[in-house]
């Protein structure tokens, strides 16, 4: 493909809609990073689709001047699969929150990872249910008090990054909404990556987690060592389930065929014909006398 003729500025992807997010919401940072990444990739709006589920962060498709699909709760990846299979030429991005992606839609992450669906999935993780006003999410740390856990959250939390690495995602990164520069680069790399790109962005909720969440996350931030090798899956896993620090960067990157490649291969074999034995051929094999 020749180089794109049109160039874009981040502001070109803005729509007339003003985000409904609370002032100070981390999702503003993610949106800005996405605008910048899309501009540096010169993504054509008419060849780009952003899908989401339900939640505060799932309002994002409305704020980006591409095709958008605010779908049902937890199913952004299930719907993204359909778009990508029907139109492999489109750039498909799925977005949503930790409640949407880890609770009601948790199983879809596993299957998108193992299939290596060529989609970029940006998870805005605030460790709480924001839209329904502050109940525990699967990512809420154990012991935290929320609207639904007065005595403290009794459940252990999931680490979305660990889940993505272990179920076969071929690009796994962790970012912070307050670190625009690195986040933009990370999203850009994720979109460029061929295969399933999972970007877990810590995106604080000022309303239901207070100012402290931002401060705590910021204090824990650390970057990957300069000589870090993202192709080593075992070393990537070392950066999951962190408590005292929060390592950001591209933790894992690998190659391999996508589900689109595999499905297309099957389609071509079927179209060529002759490779699937007929009933008569099968019978001949087992009962040659027939």
């Amino acid at each position, binding site marked *: 493909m020749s180089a794109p003729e049109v160039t874009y500025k981040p502001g070109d992807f803005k729509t007339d809609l003003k985000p409904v997010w609370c002032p100070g919401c981390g999702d503003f940072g993610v949106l800005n990073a996405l605008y910048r990444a899309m501009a540096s990739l010169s993504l054509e709006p008419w060849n780009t689709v952003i899908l989401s589920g339900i939640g505060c962060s799932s309002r994002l498709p409305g704020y980006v001047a591409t095709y958008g699909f605010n779908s049902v709760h937890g199913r952004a990846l299930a719907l993204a699969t359909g778009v990508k299979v029907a139109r492999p030429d489109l750039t498909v991005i799925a977005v949503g929150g930790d409640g949407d992606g880890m609770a009601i839609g948790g199983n879809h992450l596993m299957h998108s990872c193992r299939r290596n669906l060529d989609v970029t999935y940006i998870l805005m993780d605030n460790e709480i249910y924001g839209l*329904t006003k502050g109940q*525990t999410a699967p990512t809420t740390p154990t012991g935290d008090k929320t609207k*639904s856990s007065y005595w403290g959250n009794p459940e252990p939390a999931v680490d979305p990054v660990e889940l993505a690495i272990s179920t076969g995602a071929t690009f796994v990164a962790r970012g912070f909404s307050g670190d625009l520069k690195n986040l933009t680069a990370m999203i850009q790399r994720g979109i460029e990556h061929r295969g399933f790109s999972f970007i877990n962005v810590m995106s604080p909720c000022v309303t239901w987690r207070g100012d402290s969440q931002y401060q705590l996350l910021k204090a824990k931030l650390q970057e990957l060592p300069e000589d870090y090798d993202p192709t080593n899956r075992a070393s990537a896993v070392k950066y999951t389930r962190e408590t005292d620090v929060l390592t950001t960067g591209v933790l894992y990157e690998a190659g391999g065929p996508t589900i689109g490649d595999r499905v297309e291969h099957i389609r071509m074999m079927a179209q060529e014909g002759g490779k699937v034995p007929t009933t008569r051929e099968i019978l001949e094999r087992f009962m040659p006398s027939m």
Partner: protein
Amino acid sequence: MRMVVKGNGAVAHAVRLSRAQVVSAYPITPQTSIIEEIATMVAKGQLDARFIKVESEHSALAGCISASSAGARAFTATSAQGLALMHELIHWAAGARLPIVLANVNRAMAPGWSIWTDQNDSLSQRDTGWMQIYCESSQEVVDSVIQAFKVSERVLLPTMVVLDAFFLSHTFEDVEMPEQEVVDSFLPPLELPHKMDLAHPAALGNLVFPDRYMEFRRKMDLAHDLALGVWDEVGREWGQLTGRTYRIVEEYRMDGAELVLVTAATAGSTARPVVDQLREAGVPVGLVRLRVFRPFPASILRSLLGGRAKVLVLDRNCSFGHHGIFHQEVKSALYDLPQAEQPRVCGVIAGLGGRDITPDDLEEMLTGVWKDRITDPVTWWDVLSAQDPAKAALAMS
């Protein structure tokens, strides 16, 4: 004790008074404050129950099903998309004959996204074997949830207690909250006959062959027939204890009524003063409010509506391609009347997606039907239509 509570708060207090033992839930607007209040009650020790906040509505009802199978009194609450996600297990709860009570706050289905009221979510679950009861006020919500546990546990069918989003769920009203001793005397602890029991081990969820499946379904249908009488009996018993008697169908100013408005839920309270007003103006109008919708009170409706001149059914729902759902059901019930006693039935579909149904709307509908200005089988109320150039032009200006 008198309290001022929202419809959602009324549900939570009734669940507390009913001593639910397992509450398994997932937040969704406009239901969320029900489970939040219950979570608070459990956290404060006001309700000795196990509260679990699970990862989806499907899991919420699954949790209730297994808790109920183990013999616990189980409750959950949801709305719209949440109820739709439960659908597989909605069938299961009824088929397994579990007396679960679920509060559904009526909310319109997506797309387009709406958080406001209409009845298509609960009515889409009409044929699952659940009992359904539509409430008009916070007081009725409190009383109906408690009665729902009693009826469900008697006939072994789950009940969906239904209330309108915002018009009822988030509106504060004065409520007489029954005392715990009163509720305890009315609602004994659950003794589920087929609960999991080590002394009588059984496997649940087996394959049923064609020689037995129909018998299970016939029993469900018979249980619904039985339940109609039980709702009536329980509503009277509650009246003896509290002074508030409940009927399956509520009638208002039906003496000499020649035109009857049939509706359900909060539209009923909007309708009453309109009926009074029209009566003063000389229009012989009456009101029938459907409370228990499943089992369907067909014979009661026949006796109430037979011989009247006209019936107007107001639906906040639509069975796309064939009328409003209450309209369908009322019409089919009246078909069994002798022809001379059959009223003319008109349907109006109004208030979908939370659009307000005002007293003025109701007055216009009723006078329209009375004066034969409205004669179509179904009228979509206050909808801008391509066939109505005057209204379309108005909208464009």
